[in-house]
């Protein structure tokens, strides 16, 4: 709000005072929200780092295991075994609220299965395939965990950025401009009052 756009009236001054009060309370609340979100973010940051490290390690191990299985059993055998599997893990995505930020909570049906429940013949396959299947099941579990934590982090970061922008806009743009306008009206009203007194004195004199 530019100062020259403001009408120097008492009602405008009252309106501005109300706006400043509202902006200040909003600023205070948003600052509290930003601090709360940053605290939540710090809590989740450590977990996210660990999960990412575990995920990378699991992927490396699983890749090695399937590589061994392919070289021992042959790619076609591994692929045909993989096609024989029956049950797919199902995931449930629920949401919960952290200071107004909706974050997902992912739960899954059991990913790890005993060897005889996998769906392929135990006698027809070697232990290398079992080991590869085992390590991939572990990897899928880690993926589900990583998906939840990393999404939560992304959402928190988005909201931190948004709240930070709002706080800064209120602190450095909205409130200073409103205050400037209020000061301008106050000075202008005082000036008008002085002019009025002077005018009355002049009238009385003449």
């Amino acid at each position, binding site marked *: 709000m530019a100062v020259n756009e403001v009408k120097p009236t008492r009602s405008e001054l009252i309106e501005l005072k109300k706006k400043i009060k509202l902006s200040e309370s909003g600023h205070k609340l948003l600052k509290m929200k930003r601090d709360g979100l*940053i605290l939540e*973010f710090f809590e989740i*940051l450590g977990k*996210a*780092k660990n999960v*990412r490290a575990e*995920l*990378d390690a699991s*992927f490396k191990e*699983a*890749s090695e295991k*399937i590589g061994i299985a*392919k070289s021992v059993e042959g*790619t076609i055998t*591994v*692929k045909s*075994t*993989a*096609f024989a*599997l*029956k*049950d*797919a*893990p*199902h*995931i*449930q*995505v629920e949401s919960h609220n952290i200071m107004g930020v909706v974050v*997902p909570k*992912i739960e899954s049906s059991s*990913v790890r*299965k005993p060897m005889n429940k*996998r*769906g392929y013949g135990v006698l027809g396959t070697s232990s290398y*395939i079992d080991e*590869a*299947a085992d*390590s*991939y*099941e572990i*990897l*899928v579990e880690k*993926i*589900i965990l*990583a*998906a*939840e934590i*990393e*999404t939560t*982090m*992304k*959402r928190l*970061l*988005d909201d*931190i*950025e948004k709240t*930070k922008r709002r706080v800064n806009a209120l602190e450095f743009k909205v409130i200073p401009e409103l205050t400037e306008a209020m000061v301008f009206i106050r000075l202008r009203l005082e000036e008008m009052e002085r002019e009025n007194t002077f005018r009355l004195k002049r009238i009385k004199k003449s």
Partner: protein
Amino acid sequence: MELAVVGDSEFITGFRLAGIKKIFEVNDDNLESTVNGTLKDSEIGILVMHDDDINKLPEILRGTLNDSVEPTIVTLGGTGESSNLRDKIKQSVGVDLWK
């Protein structure tokens, strides 16, 4: 909801062994269209991709994938996801806390 995997035959075989059914074998030509298709599929909750495949996608689609929550994208191999998160942290908090 289900978990989906998009990648080359090398990448996806292991996931078939873990029992995942929504598996999309892709090459460089149909990668983009497959990823777009998975983004529209409401049954997919988590999308797993290799970091190298993500890097082959156009910048805009990569941005959409990074911001997507449903499905959530998990990248494997390389340093893709951690560097994405690192950049996001730097941008949002102002400090590199992913050290």
